[in-house]
């Protein structure tokens, strides 16, 4: 790492590169604030990150190891008069818990014997031996460097998704994968997953972007959208009576649906139209459950299930106001980009915080990974944070400090809620259709009493999150027990696993991981015994959209810079008008967006 010192003065120092922190960073940098953005981790996006398969294995390993107690260094020598030190808590490694990994596919590379005529099997073997079985410290290192490349070169990679390098090695593999698929499905081995591991982008959080949600609006408004590409979620599914069914939600879906009678179609369309506006009828149900309202509409079981679980995505006791608001949010987002209300970013959700970081860097923000803040320097009189001291003992003065909640952990509201997560790599879709490139959102009502509602997102290879022949499945719910206890029953119902050997016709789980994450929603922005110019970004929330994180980022920004516009549009390089007579001199803004961008990125990399 570069021994170079950082500049010693910033306007805003931000610790943690999760989504809200990154948005705050971009917003501040965009309006001219000097931003220093740090993360103690070796990768961007904190718990919002996406990992390659190998990267995820190292991440798992890291959490399975005992955290080493960090010795607290005394930096009081750096204090001036009238100042005191406030130490940040140790990063709260308990934000991830109950990690359990299962591999249901054969560890051996069994394809070798059967397919010795395939191109260069020896080379494949060689690669396997390198990275197979135990993800060593080496592969850990490898994974992280890869990750950083993605941050820097995200755009280039996306513009030309098949770079020369990939074409050499991946094309033969791709054809192998496909040729394997034809005879039997259970041919993808663990070795294959590891070998192709870098083509996975596995998200820690599982969310979708509402087409008219605040994240999409912000991406558009700020022009950050140009750093990423998106794909429509192509269908909404639900698990009902032991089957996975498609939920008709758009006008075209309803029209085409084969499972609804024409009368049901009319009732559904009419209900969806009528709930867009507040009516007296709605008010009459004020405070009563949404389900009760649905029952009284005489919609029938089919429609009631769709409306409650798949469209509003609420539970049976959700009050009508919340149910209607959720339904409206869903409907408003419908049809903007396609037949479902959701978008998913190519290469995974971890792209989004990185896009904002990039915007921040373009406007001069400085980035350091593996770099943390040990303590705050607080003015005793004003109770304001004057500076921070990083883990190398450099005092960096700042006017505002934003920090992710894991550094404030212990004092936060007593019993933290948890989210249960499962990530599955499977060999087929839960609902096969004409196209094998479906991105599906699946809602799964409680499988039995006291079980939570589960949201499942199934990603196909064209989302650039998994390899051909596989699907990446994310399951999320609010925890009732451990992730395994909550989600394994759903997995055994929807998929073919050793626990559900009779479901031969369902897709098989090749590999899966269960873990719990802290549900950070409800953590206060301020307080926690911290100075008034320190703001805490809570972690994830359990909802499907990004409203919570974006609202939080905007609130923090408004507290820091109450007079400034939140993420105004960044100039588009194509819109810059050159002076006709002097085209060789680029305008100032072009500098920032073009050549300057590279320069800044280099700078931020050298800092690491």
């Amino acid at each position, binding site marked *: 790492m570069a021994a170079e010192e950082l500049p010693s003065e910033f306007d805003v120092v931000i610790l943690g590169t999760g989504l809200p922190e990154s948005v705050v960073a971009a917003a501040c940098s965009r309006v001219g604030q000097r931003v220093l953005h740090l993360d103690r981790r070796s990768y961007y996006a904190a718990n919002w990150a996406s990992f390659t398969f190998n990267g995820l294995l190292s991440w798992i390993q890291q959490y399975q190891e005992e955290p080493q107690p960090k010795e607290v260094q005394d930096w009081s020598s750096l204090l001036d008069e009238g100042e005191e030190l406030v130490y940040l808590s140790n990063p709260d490694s308990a934000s991830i818990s109950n990690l359990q990994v299962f591999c249901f596919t054969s560890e051996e590379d069994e394809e070798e014997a059967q397919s010795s005529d395939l191109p260069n099997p020896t080379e494949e073997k060689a690669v396997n031996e390198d990275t197979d079985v135990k993800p060593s410290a080496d592969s850990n290192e490898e994974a992280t460097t890869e990750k950083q490349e993605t941050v820097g070169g995200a755009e280039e990679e996306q513009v030309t998704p098949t770079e020369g390098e990939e074409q050499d090695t991946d094309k033969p593999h791709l054809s192998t994968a496909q040729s394997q698929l034809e005879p039997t499905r259970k041919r993808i081995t663990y070795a294959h997953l590891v070998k192709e591991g870098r083509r996975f982008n596995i998200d820690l959080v599982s969310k979708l972007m509402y087409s008219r949600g605040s994240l999409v609006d912000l991406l558009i408004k700020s022009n950050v959208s140009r750093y990423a590409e998106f794909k429509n979620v192509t269908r909404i599914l639900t698990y009902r009576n032991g089957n996975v069914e498609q939920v008709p939600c758009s*006008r*075209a879906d309803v*029209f085409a649906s084969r499972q609804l009678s*024409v009368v049901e*179609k*009319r009732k559904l*369309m009419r209900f969806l139209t009528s709930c867009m506006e507040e009516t007296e009828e709605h008010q009459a149900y004020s405070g009563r459950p949404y389900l009760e309202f649905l029952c009284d509409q005489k919609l029938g079981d089919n429609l009631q299930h769709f409306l409650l679980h798949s469209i509003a995505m609420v539970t049976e006791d959700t009050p009508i106001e919340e149910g209607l608001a959720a339904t409206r949010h869903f409907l408003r987002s419908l049809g903007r980009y396609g037949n479902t209300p959701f978008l998913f970013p190519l290469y995974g959700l971890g792209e989004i915080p990185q896009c904002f970081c990039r915007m921040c860097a373009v406007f001069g923000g400085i980035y350091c990974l593996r770099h943390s803040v040990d303590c705050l320097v607080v003015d005793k009189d004003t109770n304001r944070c004057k500076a921070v001291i990083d883990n190398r003992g450099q005092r960096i003065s700042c006017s505002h400090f934003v920090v992710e909640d894991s550094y404030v952990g212990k004092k936060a509201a007593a019993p933290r809620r948890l989210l249960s997560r499962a990530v599955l790599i499977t060999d087929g879709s839960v609902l096969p259709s004409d196209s094998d490139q479906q991105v599906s959102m699946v809602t799964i009502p409680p499988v039995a009493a006291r079980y939570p509602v589960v949201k499942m997102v199934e990603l196909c290879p064209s989302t650039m999150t998994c390899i051909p022949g596989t699907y990446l499945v994310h399951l999320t719910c609010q925890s009732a027990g451990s992730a395994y206890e909550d989600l394994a029953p759903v997995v055994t119902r929807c998929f073919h696993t050793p626990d559900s050997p009779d479901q031969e016709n369902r897709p098989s789980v090749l590999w899966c991981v269960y873990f719990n994450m802290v549900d950070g929603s409800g953590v206060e922005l301020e307080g926690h015994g911290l100075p008034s110019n320190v703001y805490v970004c809570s972690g994830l929330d359990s909802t499907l959209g990004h409203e919570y994180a974006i609202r939080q980022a905007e609130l923090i920004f408004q507290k820091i810079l109450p007079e400034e516009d939140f993420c105004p549009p960044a100039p588009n390089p194509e819109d810059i008008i050159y002076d*006709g007579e002097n085209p060789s001199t680029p305008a100032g803004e072009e500098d920032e967006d073009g050549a300057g961008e590279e320069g800044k990125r280099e700078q931020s990399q050298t800092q690491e």
Partner: protein
Amino acid sequence: MSLQETHASQSMFLLDTHCQRKEGILDEEALQVTQQLLSSNPDFATLWNYRREILMHLETVKEKDEVQKIYEAELAFLESCLKLNPKSYGSWHHRCWVSARLPRPDWSRELSLCDRCLSLDDRNFHCWDYRRMVVKVSGVPVAQELGFTDRLIGSNFSNYSSWHYRSTLLPLLHPESPESPSPSHEPPQPSPSHSPQTQSHRVCEEQLLKEYELVQNAFFTDPNDQSAWFYYRWLLGRAEREEMISCVYVSRDEERVAVAFSRPVNAQSVSLLLVLDGQPQKVEWKSVHPRFKHSPVCICDLPPGTISDITNEHNLTVHWTEKYTHRDCALYTGRTESWCRDSATDQELFRSELSVEKTSVLQSELQSCNQLLELEPLNKWCLLTIVLLMRALDPLGYEKETLAHFQTLKEVDPMRSAYYSDLCSKFIIENTVLKMEYAEVRVFSITDKNLTTLCHLDQLLLVTHINLSSNQLQQLPPQFAMLQCLEVLEVDNNRIENLEGVYHLPKLEEVLLKNNKISALADLQPLASCPKLRRLDLRGNPVTQAANIESELTALLPSVTDLLL
């Protein structure tokens, strides 16, 4: 470069190209210059013309491969123009032209271009037109095209273009099987006038049922979308009425023959042959009113004295030579008039709207529409379709419901209440005609039914007594002159301003016009053409307030002996 500069330089360019064209410069440089201009404004027909001139010239001087290349470049350039303005007339037209001249056209590429364009705007009619051209020239199979409409309708069913395209494809792919009975069944003899097209727009029943299901899905999903309803009406079918002479009437006193046809004909040019007692007669056929050339009723006057002797019996045949059809009529001794007509059933008369389908199909369609109406009691498309289905099934049996539905229609769609009133009037008249047919009387009476318009007057050729009192009629239209046997006309309590149709009615004796809006003497002028008019009731009309009205009327209508003012 600033906007103004661009403008200035553009007009300079324009001037240049104009001169170049005049000088007949047809080289590649000119192609370049016009390309530059058109890429900023593709809607410049003159420039496209110039380009075509250049291209045609280049064709003559270049090798075939080079020509291919030039035209391919032209297609690429056109694509960029279409991106600029996807509805540019000039660009699409030019693309048609280029595609037709391309030595080795790549139609599949053109099709995929259209698909891309339609996926961005599925109602771009320029693209639809172009696509039709491509499909026709490249011979895309009909089944594949039907699949294409499936796809478009699936993604957005509010699109007339796709539904309409479907309606042209289905009869080609699933034509009606010849053995199924159809009301417009032709006699086995060859009939050159009946082109195969008139028959082949029907679709076989199996496919029809599938289409009903499809379109029902659409209108149940969104009953306010009209495209589906219009397609539905097309499916339900519009029968072609058989072309025939529906009635021949002969009157001894007037020595006049009136012929009614199943559709309006041009009285002057229609090829009719009148044979009286075996002798072809040379007569002049004319329409009943000079206002229209085409009319479903034609009249002719026989040479004086041919049938006036009441003791003679005459046999009369009218041949419609071009349609190979004829009708006989016998005038027996002692009779002053005679007629011959089909005992018309409702089927033949008025079911032309929706008539082709079997009753069972219509019945089940009515059921599903009623189901929809239960959910959407105020949907006008649904109401209107139900009315039409009821008419097709049993116009008299459903009369009450039909009238109630019309009332609702006028309330939910006040903008079109006049249309509904007229349509309702039409149906009331049809029902009354039917009742009259069943009762075999020559009296026609519709009173107090809010009639706003008169129609089917050709069906009333034989009526002697008509009572239309207490309605909303504003005029007696020229078609009224078809009532050749009319003796008594009662139209009290209407809003009549105009009597144009009371014209040369040979037997008319009484006209009761109490409480109408006749305001000028001139409006009564047509009555002067009715020779037998004796009694006229004008009470409650503005015209009665005029000075000297009585004497002027006597002068105008000398035959009237009983004048009520």
